């Protein structure tokens, strides 16, 4: 016979204001199976929890129902309290009489009656709750970091320094990400390469970091602590062990008219290339799409059209026949650090976005974006750091910087602020003025958002010391006029139209997530918002976790982030991962399915619907040991407790612990007395 304790919380007056807690306690006292029913001002407080513990001890309770807030709030609290009093935590349930009752009704009578019914329903359910033990699953103490930008590198280093192996997967030929393309970084103007390259080398040489560049995540199976990740190692055409990075092949390569991704299209690179001098690993990769030899093969030419790089390579490291290979790694936790890309104002746009026709759709040569300007300013850039414009290489005497291109523009499909443009545009004006002292830097802005440490002083310095002309107003049209670029703006502070004949225009375009983030999110079953940024579990309290246990977010894959934030998030994910790896086993919610093998006819409808592949076939043998049938078996480690199998089983041979048919039937039944 059930001995259930019911505890009604006033929640200060959140509940008591519209629900007569005393009446609820009184009504529940007479409910069959209830041995104690009390109401108290703050059940979740320490005295409240003591009340429960005492009741469990005094009345030898077999179940507890706390009528208070939503289980999402304090289910864990009350289950922990019951456990401390020796009662199995899984016979404790909550009746939601606050969010679903007192807060949404005004009539005291109605609310009290509803509270009583809700309490009764949960009491009937708890009569069927069975004590459950948490499932303990092994944890593979190896982490996977996707993306080798500053966030990925930092996360990998922190986890590896924490004593655990890390697999770092980078899509490009070298790690470093967008930070490697920058010249200097705000707010300290220290050289980006100088602070980044040591970290890259440290990651490359770290004994516990296994680095896969020119590779992508192909498939992710399993769940927290037990991921099995298949990584596609794209064919590099260069043998990693033989190559010593001498660079002869790059010099010999005849096709040199390929746009360099690293220089954001401002310079050309050969078909076999290392992205930039400090690349880690310092090993070239053969771009098979643009290489004449592979183009010939694709056209079916009998004889190879080229082979220069192979001929010149003294180490014989070039191999044209290698194909993509796949590697599977056992992983316990995953950190996503895929970073960002800049919005392109061109005509072709992904669904939901529009290009900037009024700025010429990016077809005006001297209208460039932020990263291109960084390359112009960078010593390792196409112009060796000299400020020369892309069209004719002349030194631009007037440069216009346009902020909020794409960002804060719902009409073009991006309503958010990209956060970093105000700071890097101020930096750009400084870089420009330091190189072209008599030059004129004009910035069209709406607001200056410089909220970090030393950020505002930095942007004031650009205006006060370096003489950047800040004009408050958005630009209506940009078009080419002879060798000048005409910019139609407006100064809302002096109430006059402003037309600037610029030599070069730099657009501070919006920060977008990396292309392909959608497919990666689906592989990790992580959700993303309408702009494509990955969703964190809770914006304030769990900013680096996701709703999928074991997957963490660092850097600009979650939202526009600058370098300090990306590094801080990377450290946070490392802390989460190291916390997960601190125990050998992981405790997991025991709400899993269980098959009654006596009535299962082996139709395996359950197996077809299980999204996690948690259902296996198990042989049934007769007396002589011959296999005479198969039944379904649920692997408790893999099952996540969704219950779809329970609903599709015609003979009701599967039960989901915590939400068994008995419990649901009891809840429905309790409503009959409504």
């Amino acid at each position, binding site marked *: 016979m059930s001995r259930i304790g019911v505890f009604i919380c006033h929640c200060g007056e959140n509940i008591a204001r519209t629900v007569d807690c005393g009446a609820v306690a009184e009504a529940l006292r007479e409910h069959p199976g209830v041995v104690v029913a009390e109401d108290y001002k703050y059940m979740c407080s320490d005295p409240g929890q003591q009340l429960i513990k005492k009741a469990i001890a005094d009345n030898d309770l077999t179940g507890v129902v706390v009528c208070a807030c939503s289980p999402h709030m304090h289910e864990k609290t009350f289950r922990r309290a019951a456990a401390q009093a020796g009662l199995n935590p899984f016979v404790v349930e909550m009746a939601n009489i606050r969010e679903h009752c007192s807060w949404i009704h005004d009539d005291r009578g109605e609310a009290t009656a509803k509270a009583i019914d809700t309490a009764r329903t949960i009491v009937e359910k708890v009569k069927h709750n069975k004590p459950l033990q948490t499932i303990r699953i092994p944890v593979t103490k190896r982490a996977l970091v996707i993306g080798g930008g500053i966030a990925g590198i930092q996360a990998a280093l922190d986890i590896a320094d924490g004593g655990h192996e890390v697999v770092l997967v980078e899509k490009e030929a070298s790690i470093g990400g967008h930070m490697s393309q920058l010249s200097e970084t705000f707010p300290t103007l220290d050289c980006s390469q100088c602070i980044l390259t040591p970290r890259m080398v440290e990651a490359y040489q770290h004994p516990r970091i296994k680095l896969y560049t020119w590779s992508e995540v192909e498939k992710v199976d399993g769940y927290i602590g037990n991921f099995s990740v298949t990584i596609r190692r794209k064919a590099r055409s260069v043998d990693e062990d033989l190559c010593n990075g001498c660079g002869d092949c790059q010099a010999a390569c005849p096709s040199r008219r390929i746009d360099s991704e690293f220089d954001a299209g401002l310079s050309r690179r050969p078909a076999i290339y290392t992205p930039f001098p400090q690349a880690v690993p310092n090993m070239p990769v053969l771009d098979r799409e643009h290489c004449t030899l592979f183009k010939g093969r694709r056209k079916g030419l009998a004889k190879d059209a080229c082979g220069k790089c192979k001929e010149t390579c003294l180490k014989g490291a070039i191999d044209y026949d290698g194909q993509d290979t796949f590697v599977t790694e056992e992983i316990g936790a995953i950190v996503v650090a895929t970073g960002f890309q800049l919005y392109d104002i061109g005509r072709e746009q992904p669904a939901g976005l529009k290009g900037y*026709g009024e700025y010429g*759709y990016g077809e005006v040569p001297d209208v460039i974006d932020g990263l291109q300007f960084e390359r112009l300013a960078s010593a390792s850039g196409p112009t060796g750091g000299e400020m020369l414009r892309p069209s004719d290489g002349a030194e631009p005497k007037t440069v216009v910087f346009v902020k909020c291109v794409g960002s804060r523009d719902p009409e073009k499909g991006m309503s958010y602020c990209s956060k970093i443009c105000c700071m890097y545009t101020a930096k750009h004006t400084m870089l420009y003025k330091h190189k072209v002292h008599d030059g004129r830097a004009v910035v069209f802005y709406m607001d200056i958002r410089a909220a970090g440490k030393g950020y505002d002083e930095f942007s004031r310095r650009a205006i006060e010391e370096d003489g950047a002309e800040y004009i408050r107003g958005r630009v209506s049209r940009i*078009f*080419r*006029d002879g060798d000048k670029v005409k910019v139609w703006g407006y100064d809302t502070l002096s109430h006059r139209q402003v037309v600037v004949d610029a030599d070069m225009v730099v657009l501070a375009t919006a920060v977008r997530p990396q292309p392909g983030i959608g497919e990666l999110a689906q592989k990790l079953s992580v959700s993303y918002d309408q702009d494509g940024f990955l969703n964190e579990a809770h914006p304030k309290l769990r900013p680096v976790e996701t709703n999928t246990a074991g997957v963490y977010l660092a850097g600009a894959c979650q939202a526009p982030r600058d370098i300090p934030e990306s590094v801080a998030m990377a450290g946070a994910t490392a802390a989460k991962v190291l916390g997960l790896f601190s125990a050998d086993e992981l405790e997991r919610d025991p709400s899993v399915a269980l098959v009654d093998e006596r009535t299962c006819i082996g139709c395996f409808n359950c197996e077809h619907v299980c999204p996690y592949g948690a259902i296996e076939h198990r042989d049934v043998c007769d007396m002589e040991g011959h296999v005479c049938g198969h039944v379904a078996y649920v692997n408790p480690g893999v099952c996540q407790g969704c219950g779809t199998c329970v609903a599709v089983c015609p003979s009701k041979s599967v039960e989901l612990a915590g939400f068994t048919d008995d419990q649901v039937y009891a809840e429905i039944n309790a409503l009959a007395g409504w």
Partner: protein
Amino acid sequence: MTLAYYPGCSMHGTSREYEESLLAVAAALELGLTEIADWSCCGASSAHAADHLLGVALPARNLALAEAQGADEVLAPCAACYNRLSGAVHAVAEEPGMAAKVPEVLGRAFANSVRVLSIVELLQGLAPVIEERVAARLEPNPLEHLNIAAYWGCLLVRPAAITGFDDAERPTGMDDVISACSANPVSWNMAVECCGGAFSVSRTSSVLRLSRAIIEDARHCGADAILAACPLCHANLDFRQSAMSLRGEPPMPVLYITQLVGLALGLPMAALGFERHFVDTQPLFARLAREAEKAAAAAAERDAAKAARAAAKAGAS
């Protein structure tokens, strides 16, 4: 497909050459335009400046007439009329209560079933036919040497919700028609900037300022002429051009899109109303004709030389 024709008030007045060339082209391409009987003024900018409902009802009356006369499409060559008519279609379809209010105010049935067509959509659709006709012409085509800047103005492309048949910032429809006529479209910057529109009479100074900027940019980008598809724009660019101080630059002829197509189809000059222009177009045509002969002569020489070489080779072997 019955195509009704809504001329608009200026077609019989300041832009008669637009109608003449349109009708000539329509005849040449057997378009079968039938003018809407008893059409009335669409109210242009004055009506909707005074009252939104009036700005919708006036054009709606013509749509209702077209419906009654069994048309399912209406050609409105004048950009202002096109904007007002399609604006009415949009308003009656989208704005709550308008669908009931308009017929009540008109005093006649109106089902809003007619589609409004602009001159550019029509000619762009006929581009292949034009191209065939141009190719079929034997004598050298002077238009091949004509660099012309396609001027859209504002009412043909904005607001996008109503016009929407081409990109509002970088439209290409007129360029297609120009290429079909074997002329060379010029890439320039003022294609969609406003010419001053209705202020032609009431605030001419603004019109001169805006139109001069358009003409200068066209010349700056190497255009011999400007192609217009709206009587208001044509008036401001052509009729007002004499009042602009073009700082010594030669005058810039302004052609109607239908006139260009007429030339391409080889229709006689007289039928296209060139004599009604304020900026004389004859010097331009004369120059083009000379260049065409020169090019033809050069081509003939080249053919002769090639034939001679071929003959010499044949003779030698």
